[in-house]
């Protein structure tokens, strides 16, 4: 299989990024919800947020790469069987997923950097603060992060259901392409 996308299939680069992001988003959502309930004496009290922030920032880097890659290697053409409405809905849905991802990631970044502190990524390097000093920045960013994360996970769920619908009901190549296995 090739790295670049073709007119019929996604290439390995897009495939790895797509499923990697999916795994990270589901994992980070679960980790985020779980870590809020940890008490002060849990051994995970510091580790869980550190993991959450580190993975989140790697995810941000991957998403930025994905935007560049989309420009370097555009996605396959829309399936011939898809009506203009289906094409519009899927474009809107995918755009919303991208937007949701960036809102969640950037708002999360703005919580921890509100006081000017950088965020350490697995102890390998630090991402410095850029925007600080907004009144109650950490609280506002925190609320945005929480609600946007829920909106994103619901949207992602709908995205998965839509893919399954195309695969099992329409029986078209939508899902297969994201494994590089389009039939037509």
């Amino acid at each position, binding site marked *: 299989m090739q790295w670049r996308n073709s007119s019929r299939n996604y290439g390995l680069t897009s495939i790895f990024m797509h499923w990697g992001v999916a795994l990270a988003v589901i994992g980070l959502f679960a980790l985020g919800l779980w870590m809020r309930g940890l*008490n*002060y*004496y849990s051994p995970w009290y510091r580790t869980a*947020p550190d993991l959450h922030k580190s993975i989140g920032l790697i995810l941000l880097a991957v998403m930025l790469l994905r935007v560049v890659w989309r420009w370097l290697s555009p996605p396959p053409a829309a399936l011939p069987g898809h009506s203009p409405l289906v094409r519009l809905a899927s474009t809107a849905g995918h755009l919303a997923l991208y937007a949701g991802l960036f809102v969640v990631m950037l708002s999360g970044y703005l*919580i*921890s*950097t*509100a*006081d000017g*502190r950088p965020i350490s990524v697995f102890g390998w390097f630090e991402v410095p603060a850029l925007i600080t000093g907004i009144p*109650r*920045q*950490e*609280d506002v960013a*925190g609320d945005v992060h929480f609600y946007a994360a829920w909106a994103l996970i619901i949207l992602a769920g709908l995205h998965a259901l839509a893919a399954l619908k195309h695969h099992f009901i329409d029986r078209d190549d939508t899902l297969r392409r994201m494994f590089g296995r389009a039939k037509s």
Partner: protein
Amino acid sequence: MLKKTFTALTLGAALFAGQAMAADYVIDKQGQHAFVNFKISHLGFSWIYGTFKDFEGTFSFDAANPEASKVNVTLKTASVDTNHAERDKHLRSGDFLNVDKHPTATFTSTSVKSTGEGTADITGNLTLNGVTKPVVIAAKFLGEGKDPWGGYRAGFEGTTTIKMKDFGIKMDLGPQSENVELILTVEGVRQ
């Protein structure tokens, strides 16, 4: 006639002799010459110091009659600052100060008892996290007088220790951190 006048004058003088008039002061928020700080143990290994940046208040004070003094302070709980965004976010949440539900905390004095030269115990009601309980602030009068810019000021410092659970703050930080010490200093401008 002369004797009556003399008596009246002496009586009048005696009445007014030790009496610097009780004065009302507004805590100097404009110049921020006042601080409401707190201190709590971290695991028994160090102290976390924090402050409430946004508060205002008044006091009335008469050095000749300190037990008639009154003080009233209202602070914005969301203005808490311990120099750490993630910690401050947690402090403002329902685990601690619950600032969206209880945006202010207040202290209103109910009585003052002199405990020595320039020191007093100020008893009053502290409302924190929506709970009102009496506390006693061990206060010390630091001084008063004219300032170089046409005003007259008086200043105090005081401390009190509260138990977080008494005010409905349920977060368990361990046995070393049940109590918070409030450390205050205020300078008021006479009105």
